[in-house]
């Protein structure tokens, strides 16, 4: 197998809080190949966003990466100087966020924001920056980009704003784009559009992408592989089709069953009982055990990762009956 583009191993990002240490990311490992789309799935608070931020060193203080490595381009990004990390951000690894209303600066024109993003890595003339901005805006499907360039974020609709944010992320043709729930804040019809365009862009430019989402439906339509996160750990990983057809981990099963589209009309919506555990006070064993229908005394001990046929899972009682994988 060729060298992966990005290799994350044993990543731990902790936040000291008054109530104790919050283990937002607690030993996450995965790899990302060239041009591959990885879906990172989990509920709110599962650590998926913090994982994304950790990759490019954007963890908010007082949180910090306490252990692990992020290998990219022959270097470990963990422990890299701020200046060196800055040169990677936006140029090699870009990021798009959930709410375009919050990410774009409301008082700067699109042209200014794009120019700042270009100048962060290159010295270009104003005219060149403009030309490049127009080109990228056109690529993400902004109509009449030339005239829209001098507009301000509030003059765009939600979907268009997110396209602008994506355009800013694409300015330097990064190798990897981390998309942190980029469609969550949008209307369903716009979601589908953005999803389709992101997929097309990834294929066209040959970028790899980490698609962070709580929504299995969007992930299944865009990702090649899927990592399911729960309480700071990856509990199940594998090719998206196999994982969704025959989930091994009861949590993945629970997520799938709680999809409204899987419910027979008229029946009650299914849900996973209980709530996500407090990250400052995780159980010693499997963090999902208190909510798990199959939990028993064995689950007091943290299950080790099992692996078979490109798939991994972390459970004492994996589902094996429907072994279509």
């Amino acid at each position, binding site marked *: 197998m060729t060298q992966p583009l990005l290799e994350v191993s044993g990543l731990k990002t902790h936040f000291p809080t008054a109530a104790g240490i919050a283990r937002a990311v607690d030993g996450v490992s995965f790899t990302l190949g060239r041009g591959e789309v990885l879906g990172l799935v989990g509920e709110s608070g599962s650590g998926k966003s913090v994982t994304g931020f950790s990759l490019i060193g*954007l963890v908010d203080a007082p949180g910090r990466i306490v252990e692990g490595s992020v290998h990219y381009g022959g270097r470990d990004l963990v422990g890299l100087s701020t200046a060196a990390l*800055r040169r990677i951000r936006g140029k090699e690894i870009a990021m798009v966020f959930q709410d375009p209303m919050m*990410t774009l600066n409301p*008082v700067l024109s699109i042209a200014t924001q794009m120019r*700042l993003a270009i100048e962060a890595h290159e010295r270009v003339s104003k005219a060149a920056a403009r030309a490049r901005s127009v080109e990228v805006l056109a690529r993400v499907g902004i109509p009449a980009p030339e005239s829209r360039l001098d507009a301000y974020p509030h003059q765009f609709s939600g979907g268009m704003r997110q396209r602008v944010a994506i355009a800013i992320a694409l300015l330097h043709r990064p190798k990897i784009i981390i998309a942190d729930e980029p469609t969550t804040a949008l209307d369903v019809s716009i979601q589908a559009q953005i999803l389709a365009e992101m997929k097309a862009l990834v294929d066209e430019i040959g970028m790899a992408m980490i698609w962070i989402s709580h929504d299995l439906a969007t992930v299944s339509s865009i990702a090649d592989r899927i990592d399911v996160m729960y309480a700071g750990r990856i509990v199940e990983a594998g090719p998206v089709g196999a994982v969704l057809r025959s989930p091994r981990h009861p949590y993945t099963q629970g997520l799938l069953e709680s999809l409204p589209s899987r419910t027979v009309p008229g029946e009650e919506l299914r849900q996973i009982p209980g709530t996500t555990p407090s990250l400052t006070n995780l159980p010693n064993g499997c963090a999902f055990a208190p909510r798990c229908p199959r939990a028993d005394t064995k689950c007091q001990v943290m299950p080790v990762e099992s692996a078979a046929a490109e798939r991994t899972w972390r459970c004492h009682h994996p589902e094996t009956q429907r072994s279509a994988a």
Partner: protein
Amino acid sequence: MLGFVIQRLWQAMIVILAMSVLVFCGVFAVGNPIDVLISPDATQDIRAQVIAQYGLDQPLWRQYFTFFGRMLQGDFGESFVYNMPVTQLILSRLPATLELVLFAVVGASLLGIPLGMYAGYRHDAPAAKIIMGLSILGFSVPSFWIGLVLIMTFAVQLGWLPAGGRGTTASLFGIEWSFLTIDGLRHMLLPAINLALFKLAMMIRLARAGTREIMLTDTIRFARAAGLSEGTVLVRHVLRLIAIPLVTIFGLELGSTLAFAVVTETIFSWPGLGKLIIDSITSLDRPVMVAYLMLVALLFVMINFFVDLAYALLDPRLRRARA
């Protein structure tokens, strides 16, 4: 934009009109200037003559219209005390206050905003804590006391700077200014510092609060994710986002300091407007009081107008609503 300007000019006229009524009636209620103007042993004839000469025998509304008509021509009458036209008197004092206040408020902002942004950006650093501690001092210690301490320290004990007066002035556009000469600047330094301390503290706290809030937003995270340097993030993003409250306070402080630099001007015997108004109040010099208050109203109207224009420049979201 033109519609906005016209609308604001219209509002300004109404404000000035309302202020002129209030000021005129208010000052009328303060006391009878005749008692101050002529000696108590003057005859009844002379008394009546003086009253008629100043038009004080007319009904209030007629006096007001006379006043208003003259005001429109820039004529506020003659000072009872100085025996010169009030407009000329005030204009002779205005530059002194203007340069002192501009020096103080602009200086406080130029110093306070970067300090506050630093304190907000590095809120855990020892330097930030020292800045914030000093800003509390600037807020809570009364300015007359600071003024006295400044004089005691720098003028009396160290003898570095003069304790009062404007020093040598130089002429520009036919007006005498202190800031054009070294000696004038030396005279201006202590009163300017005295005036600036409170504003400095306020600017620091505002800038810090804004910076702390903005630094946590996704806008900043996104800018950093695009690889922008911290300096660019602070100057291009944060400063623009915190500018509106800063401009607001800058305008308010500029206006109120121009109008009420009284304490500092008195302590440092700075011959500005503040001293003039205090003297006029004690001697019931009505024309000066009225003209001064009208000037203050005009200043505030003008400053608010420019602050509103600045809003529109700073925040595109406000442009469409106003246009």
